[in-house]
């Protein structure tokens, strides 16, 4: 986003907008279909609450409807991420003020993972798909991923348990994520075709 568009975006209320520049509803619907899930995941990373994340994304799409008319099509996704980011931060701050608990939103208990199932990822097929992908990883990478994500061990604990340097544990994790990401993108491309 460049020039006047950026200035307008940053100057309006919580989202930095004052002058309405409506975007066509078809385009908004298309954007919603494409990005809703990924934006909710992103908002969740900040808020650690799916209901708040959904609120942030909803507000962002309202903003897109009202103020997204001048945003260039190529910049829309980045614009949406930024709006969601700001909304999430605003909601988090408001909630922290309301509850007067500083770390509540970043220390959600693991049980809330299944208390708030996430749309697509909660589907059995997708979970099975992820399982299959993880099964294709080398065993040492599978172990790191499982210990860190499922068992919620820290990297230092993992390094101690496996008697490896922390750097090795981190590099295994990074390699595992690369492979998982690559397979996700491959499948996404094949689905699009």
């Amino acid at each position, binding site marked *: 986003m460049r020039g006047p568009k950026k200035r307008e975006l940053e100057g309006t209320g919580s989202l930095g907008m004052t002058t309405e520049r409506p975007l066509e509803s078809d385009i908004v619907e298309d954007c919603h279909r494409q990005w809703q899930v*990924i*934006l909710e*995941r*992103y908002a*969740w*990373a*900040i808020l650690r609450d799916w209901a708040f994340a959904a609120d942030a994304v909803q507000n962002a799409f309202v903003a897109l409807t009202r103020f997204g008319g001048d945003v260039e099509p190529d910049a829309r*996704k*980045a614009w949406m*991420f*930024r709006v969601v*980011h*700001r909304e999430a*931060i605003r909601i988090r701050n408001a909630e922290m003020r309301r509850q007067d608990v500083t770390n509540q939103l*970043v*220390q959600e208990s*693991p049980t809330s*993972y*299944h208390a708030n*199932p*996430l749309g697509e*990822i*909660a589907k*059995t097929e*997708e*979970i*099975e798909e*992820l*399982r299959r992908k*993880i099964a294709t990883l080398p065993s040492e990478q599978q172990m790191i*991923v*499982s210990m*860190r*994500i*499922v068992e*919620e061990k*820290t*990297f*230092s604990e993992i390094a101690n348990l496996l008697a490896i340097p*922390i750097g090795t544990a*981190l590099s295994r*994790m*990074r*390699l595992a*994520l*690369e492979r*998982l*990401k690559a397979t*996700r993108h491959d499948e996404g491309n094949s689905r699009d075709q």
Partner: protein
Amino acid sequence: MTKEIAVTNKSDSDKGLEAMLYVLCDESIDRYAFEAKLEHDPSLAEAVAEAVAIVQGLKQAAVSSNASMNTKQPFEGSVVRSRQMPFLAKGFVAIVSIAAAFCVIFFRWQRDTVIASAESMPEIAAAWIDLSEANTDLTDGSMSFFESDGDNDNVIAGSGAEPKHLPVTDDMPEWMLLAVTGTDSLNPEAIK
């Protein structure tokens, strides 16, 4: 891990790892500094969303695998329970029966104790003393016991003595005749 991970090379893999550490709330990540970077780096934000998808998927997979294990356990447990229940029921019945038996024994013992204690009551003792005195009088040839005004109905069997207030008659009592003849009436012919 206290040392902050330096992410100098902003390659995709580094972003992916950094995003994953942020999502996992790893202590090596300064959350607020990272969020400041997120606002201006959409690719990093996408990496965060990707990391959330992986984390959620793995956790869902772990939960579903645990759930599938838990769904098997009740079935196995029910089989075990169905085998154990008769034994438990028998044990319960046995315990109740033993307790009931103890209760019965206890109450009987308590009643006997009460009766035993009642036998030593002063009235019985007094009666015994009176009887002893009466015996003493009889041995002395006195009839003072039967001549007393008290409503004492005690008759000493085989003593041959009869209370003074009882009717003394030579006639056979009717009840004795009836008992001997086995008839229901006092018809003289029937008696004969």
